[in-house]
């Protein structure tokens, strides 16, 4: 059996592969050879084979079959084996493989090995990938080594302890005694790792923090020695002695001095000394200055020192080195909240950084600029930021636009300025604004009553220029729909009113409908806007024509709207003015403002209520007739019944027969007549409010009820009260089927006495699955102005095991709370 190929030989061979396929073939061949070698339990070459495996793993090939082999290497006596074994463990294993626990015993032994380099390997591996279980098992060993006088081992034990604490914070206590004289060490490795360990403990435990505050003088002394001592070749970096240690000490001081006057005072001098004496010509000096500034800003330093720190950052901003400018901006961003005025002094430099060529710097400068905007500088800052928005890379535009909107909202000096600013953003970066900008803007515009004419005029002009930016187009469409009358009557005061006719406006809106640039959402906006203009313009016929054309649009959303608007024209024309009148000022609640409007697609209009059964396209007419009758829609002005109610003279509906036998005992019929017409609009207009239909608090404690239970079909009713109208009860029906066959083509219908109004919304499905595997739900809204006892007649039809089933029932057991 020839010896397995050497590692470096393999590497050379693989590198000669000219294609990915060739490389893969080589790798597979070698892996096969390695696998057989593993199977033969070859001790001699195991190390070489695992090393090769690790190389192939780095190229991206699977190497999990080598995991156990690593463990065998670790257990070997040979140093070469252990070195590769531990490396393999760190590369191939982590806590997610169970097999890693097998390492624990080996590591324990090696932690007590006679050779420090073996101990070092064990500490390193534990400190890099040790799992919580391993850490628990071996913490004691680590703690022992933390107390050794061997500095090589002590420093490794310290960082290993850091890892143990990160994995199992409860073990932190046990390391406390060993920390007693860590800082008295002369060895820089031990000092550095000790400071890291102390930092970790202080960050995790306030008690530890309090305990270690007493170390501040010692830390200050060590730092002072580093700065003052002469040249030390071993630790020198460009004339600075051990910058790594200096920075870590500064960071620990930061943690110890925070919120503590005494500690902060004790470190004041050294901080001032470092801040003024550190050489700034090279990166290493600036690294120390940077950390110093962070520390000064975080502790309770005296004001002179803080000013010094901010000025250092200000100087950083002017440094040629991009990295320095970048960290300056980052630091200023951190301090802008607490030292706002000091940072404001550097505002012009920061704003200049917006023009920096470097992307990272630009981003930081943008973030910082937004943080510096306030009521005093808003005009000037916004000019710069809008200029930035114009010219920046696309990756910035969305964030910048959002920032502009937020700043404008907080500090706008006038409504006109606010709207102008928004317009500017929409026209320059319109395709990058976030989705919620549209409803936010609509709300802003609505509430700026005196600016309506100006706004709609500007938006109209913008549309004439460019219809490609959807958010702009959507807001513009909405405005034109709302304020089109102001547009054509030339009422604008803020600027020269333009002359535009109704037809021209309709041309533009119709143009949006047909343009390829318009998204379906935008088309929806445009159609609704056109519809709204039917109550503001005189060219109603043209609008009717457009609306009827889109009644057969392929786009289901558009079609639905058009059909509903058609219905408005045909059957509900008397309601049209009320439905389409001007929007009231919207209350923007903290959380609900934008989302509510988004729910109704940026428009706060109702979908005209019809119960729709799928598919709507094929049989809209019949369904509409049947169910509209349930609404009592034909009884807008009800016939005053003085005697028993007769069948109302309405079109179509075996359903109305349901009402035939319901006696209205005790209910004086005439009374409601005058009030019903006005109540009807308010009922339907509930949908107009900017609240989602069912965003209400479930009426406290109206108990659910079973309305029907027969032949395996059970229908339960649950109740809510619709906000804001307490006269509306919202009932959700839940239909379940306990038989072994599904009930298909399930249709639920309901009718109520005349003094009620009923709306039935679409069901969740028309199949009630067998064996109670699911429920069909449907929502009923009942308006009960007279507070009469609620009664309902329901009709159920479905197909069960191939045969049609039909049933009628009366529901009388409504809980009193549902109608009182």
């Amino acid at each position, binding site marked *: 059996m020839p010896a397995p190929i*050497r590692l*470096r030989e393999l*590497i*050379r061979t693989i590198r000669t592969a000219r294609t990915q396929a060739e490389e893969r073939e080589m790798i597979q061949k070698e892996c096969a050879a390695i696998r057989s070698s593993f199977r033969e339990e070859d001790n001699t070459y195991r190390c070489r084979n695992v*090393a090769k495996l*690790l*190389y192939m793993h*780095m*190229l*991206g090939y699977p190497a999990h079959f080598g995991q156990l082999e690593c463990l065998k290497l670790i257990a070997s006596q*040979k*140093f*070469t084996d252990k*070195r590769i074994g531990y*490396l393999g463990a760190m590369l191939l294993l*982590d*806590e*997610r493989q169970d097999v890693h626990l097998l390492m624990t015993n080996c590591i324990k032994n090696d932690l007590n090995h006679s*050779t420090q*380099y073996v101990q*070092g390997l064990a*500490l*390193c591996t534990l400190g*890099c*990938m040790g*799992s919580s279980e391993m850490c628990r098992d071996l913490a004691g060993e680590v703690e022992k080594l933390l107390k050794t006088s061997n500095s090589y081992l002590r*420093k490794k034990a310290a*960082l290993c302890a*850091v*890892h143990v604490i990160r994995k199992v914070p409860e073990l932190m206590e046990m390391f406390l005694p060993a920390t007693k004289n860590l800082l008295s060490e002369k060895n820089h*490795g031990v000092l*550095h790792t000790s400071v*890291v360990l102390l930092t970790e403990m202080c960050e995790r435990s306030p008690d530890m923090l309090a305990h270690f505050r007493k170390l501040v003088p010692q830390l200050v002394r060590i730092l002072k020695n580093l700065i003052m001592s002469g040249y030390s070749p*071993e*630790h020198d*970096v460009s004339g600075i002695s*051990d*910058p*790594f240690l200096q*920075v*870590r000490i500064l*960071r620990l001081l930061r943690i110890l001095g925070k919120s503590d006057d005494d500690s902060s005072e004790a470190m004041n001098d050294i901080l001032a000394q470092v801040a003024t004496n550190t050489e700034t010509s090279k*990166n*290493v000096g*600036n*690294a120390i200055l*940077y*950390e110093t500034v962070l520390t000064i800003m975080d502790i309770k330093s005296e004001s002179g020192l803080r000013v010094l720190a901010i000025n250092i950052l200000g100087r950083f901003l002017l440094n040629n080195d*991009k*990295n*320095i*400018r*970048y*960290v300056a901006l*980052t630091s200023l961003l951190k301090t802008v909240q607490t030292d706002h005025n000091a940072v404001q002094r550097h505002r012009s430099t920061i704003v200049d950084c917006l023009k920096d060529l*470097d*992307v*990272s*710097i630009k*981003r930081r400068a943008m973030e910082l600029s937004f943080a510096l905007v306030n009521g005093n500088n808003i005009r000037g800052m916004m000019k710069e930021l809008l200029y930035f928005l114009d010219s920046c890379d696309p990756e910035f535009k969305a964030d910048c636009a959002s920032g502009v909107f937020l700043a404008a909202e907080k500090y706008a000096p006038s409504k006109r300025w606010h709207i102008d600013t928004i317009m500017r953003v929409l026209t320059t970066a319109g395709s990058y604004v976030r989705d919620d900008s549209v409803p936010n803007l609509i709300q802003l515009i609505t509430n700026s009553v005196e600016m309506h004419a100006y706004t709609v005029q500007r938006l109209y002009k913008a549309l004439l220029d460019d219809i490609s930016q959807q958010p702009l187009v959507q807001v513009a469409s909405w405005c034109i729909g709302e304020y089109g009358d102001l547009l054509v009557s030339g009422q604008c005061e803020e600027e020269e009113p333009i002359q535009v006719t109704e037809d021209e406006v309709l041309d533009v809106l119709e143009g949006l409908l047909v343009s390829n640039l318009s998204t379906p959402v935008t088309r929806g906006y445009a159609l609704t806007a056109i519809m709204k203009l039917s109550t503001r313009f005189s060219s109603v016929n043209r609008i009717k024509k457009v609306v009827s054309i889109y009644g057969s649009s392929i786009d289901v959303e558009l079609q639905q709207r058009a059909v509903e608007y058609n219905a408005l024209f045909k059957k509900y024309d008397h309601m049209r003015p009320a439905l389409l009148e001007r929007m009231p000022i919207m209350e923007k609640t903290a959380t609900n403002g934008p989302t509510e409007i988004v729910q109704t697609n940026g428009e706060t209009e109702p979908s005209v209520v019809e119960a729709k059964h799928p598919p709507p396209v094929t049989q809209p007419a019949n369904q509409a007739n049947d169910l509209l009758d349930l609404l009592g829609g034909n009884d807008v002005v009800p016939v005053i019944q003085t005697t028993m109610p007769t069948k109302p003279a309405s079109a179509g509906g075996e359903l109305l027969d349901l009402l035939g036998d319901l006696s209205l005992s005790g209910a004086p019929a005439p009374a409601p007549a005058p009030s019903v017409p006005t109540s009807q609009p308010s009922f339907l207009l509930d949908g107009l409010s900017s609240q989602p239909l069912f965003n209400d608090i479930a009426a406290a404690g109206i108990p659910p009820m079973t309305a029907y239970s027969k032949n395996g079909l059970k229908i339960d009713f649950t109740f809510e009260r619709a906000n804001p109208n307490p006269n509306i009860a919202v009932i959700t029906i839940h239909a379940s089927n306990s038989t072994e066959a599904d009930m298909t083509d399930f249709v639920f219908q309901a009718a109520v006495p005349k003094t009620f109004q009923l709306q039935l919304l679409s069901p969740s499905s028309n199949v009630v699955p067998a064996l109670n595997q699911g429920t069909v739900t449907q929502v009923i809204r009942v308006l009960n102005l007279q507070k009469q006892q609620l009664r309902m007649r329901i009709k159920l039809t479905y197909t069960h095991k191939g045969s049609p089933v039909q049933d009628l029932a009366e529901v009388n057991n409504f809980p009193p709370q549902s109608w009182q």
Partner: protein
Amino acid sequence: IRQGKLRLQKWFTPVPDREKKKVIRDMMTLVLSRPPRSCNFLQWKDLKIVYKRYASLYFCAGLEDQDNELLALEVLHRYVELLDKYFGNVCELDIIFNFEKAYFILDEFLMGGEVLETSKLAVGGAIEEADMLQETLEDYMSKPAY
């Protein structure tokens, strides 16, 4: 479009393999697309990425929020110096063919993501002594014909 090839990777937190591959891919794309003379820092998700180019190699480090970026540049530089001292005018091929040594050196310099030893001399000395313990020194120290 420049393609990157991984020469060394060290993770200090447990990360699933698939995610490691994605992170590496993302980082390579980000770093390799940086225009020359850009600043050496970039933000990626919640990590600060510090990178420095040395000849044909990019050295990258992922830092947490409280870590000092300027110092990280010094850390990267120190590692390159250590490699240079060990290999004598180190080049990419040295690291390709002796990747395990690159790891050994790294493990004497950093542990758990923190600097372990701040003295170049101490790190170099430790590696030399440990090398002497290698039983198959020939194999280990042989300079391959690239």
